[in-house]
């Protein structure tokens, strides 16, 4: 098939209105889990404010469980009837969940030492926990359709970028791929919907790149 001749709009069979209603219905159907995810976001902010290897491993494990939940409940159960590619996305999210859980189980000597990149990663996590939902509300999304860390893909992916940026060595790069890909996909989806916040996931990706580049530069100047 001549996939290259297709624009993203040709492949997305739903409207922004339907997408937001789906999010609202999903939030309502899983209200206790959504509340748990919100609390988890605050917990992650707390335990990574003074990140240690043990705390970061705990955070990675918790986030891994979130990816598995989103794979099952959001993509497989809620989105599959509306989007032909939803099950592929579910498998991608499940794989990332397993990766995060694996990263949590493996020993970790220390978190990133450089203060500035670590601080930037923490602020990125804060954007995931609070910034994205608030930006959605400010942009006119109904509050019922806001996405929250733990249960919605965007804030969970951005939080994963933040935690990956805190992780040392190759582990960071391994954990970055899926959330980075989702950020690009999400931006494409939102752009197709003409959603004014389409730029937020790539902006988060850019902040992650800055944090990683800065830490690499500081590492080489040591």
């Amino acid at each position, binding site marked *: *098939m*001549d996939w290259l*001749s*297709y624009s993203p*709009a*040709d492949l997305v*069979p*739903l*409207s922004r*209105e*339907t997408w937001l*209603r*789906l999010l609202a*219905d999903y939030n309502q159907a899983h209200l206790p889990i959504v509340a748990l995810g919100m609390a988890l976001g605050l917990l992650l902010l707390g335990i990574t404010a003074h990140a240690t290897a043990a705390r970061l491993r705990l955070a990675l494990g918790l986030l891994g469980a979130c990816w598995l939940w989103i794979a099952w409940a959001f993509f497989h159960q809620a989105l599959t*009837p*509306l*989007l*032909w590619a939803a099950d592929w996305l579910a498998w991608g999210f499940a794989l990332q969940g397993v990766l995060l859980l694996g990263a949590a189980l493996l020993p970790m000597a220390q978190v990133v030492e450089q203060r500035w990149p670590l601080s930037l990663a923490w602020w990125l996590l804060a954007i995931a926990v609070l910034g994205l939902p608030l930006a959605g509300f400010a942009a006119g999304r109904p509050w019922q359709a806001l996405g929250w860390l733990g249960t919605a893909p965007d804030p969970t992916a951005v939080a994963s970028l933040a935690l990956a940026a805190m992780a040392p060595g190759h582990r960071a790069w391994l954990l970055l791929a899926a959330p980075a890909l989702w950020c690009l996909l999400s931006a494409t989806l939102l752009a197709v919907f003409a959603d004014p916040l389409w730029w937020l996931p790539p902006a988060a990706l850019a902040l992650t790149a800055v944090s990683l580049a800065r830490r690499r530069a500081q590492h080489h100047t040591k």
Partner: protein
Amino acid sequence: MPGFDHDRRRLLHAATGLIAAGALPRLAPAVAGSTAPAALTKPIPGSGERLPAIGMGTWITFNVGDDAQALAVRREILEAFFAAGGGMIDASPMYGSAEAVLGKTLPTDATQRGLIAATKVWTSDGNAGAREIAHSRALWGLPRFDLLQVHNLLAWEAHIETLKAMRAAGEVRWIGMTTSHGRRHRELERIMAREPIDFVQLTYNIVDRAAEERLLPLARERGIAVIANRPYRRGALPDRAAGKPLPGWGREIGCDTWPQALLTFIVAHPAVTCAIPATSRVDHMRENMAAARGPLPDAALRRRMAADFAKL
């Protein structure tokens, strides 16, 4: 009067007489109790059977899942469609929940009211076509489809054999092939020249007119009915005309709005059998269905319409 298709006008007068005489009962509900002209129908070349020229697409607009409020609106849209004499409804397994939504929202007497049910085969597995069609049939809640098409030529060599066998067995009335966005016209042309298909679906509107060069003439030559998709370019064409007055010729062809003129332009092409605009609004459905009820523009007026639209 210059600019009118006189054959078309004569046909309308004749049809009006036939309706009055009760010879065309399927068209009667569209005009019962009103002075509105009947919905335009065009012949399917292979069978001579007439098809309402304005049909309905479901891309995006019917992919609403289980949302009760959205389903209620779709029921209203379908009611408006059939009340105005609509016939063909086109969907695909690629359109998410659109087929399931049709199954939940089609009136129970849709077939009696003139439903022409059209869907597509959309799987790269050449052996899975029949299974997918059976699933689609269950979703729509219909005993059989009127038209089955291969979606965007995907694995068409295998699927066309399945469809031909189904047509021979009386499990479907017509079979066809689809493309969109002007893609793969050369391959489609080869298929049209070689395969015994009844319908072809392609993108044709006042701006996207590549099909005029070879595909539409070939369709006439081979006796293949043509469904025009993306008549509004997913809303971009009406958006472009929004707030702009319709030139004087609009009144001559019985159109009040640019969207009606855009649809009339399409179905006025002699090779086009049906256009399938999609909408999620009842008022837009009514507006669509009011198109092509006046005299159809001839070739000269169609050129003028395209030129006027290009200036917007």
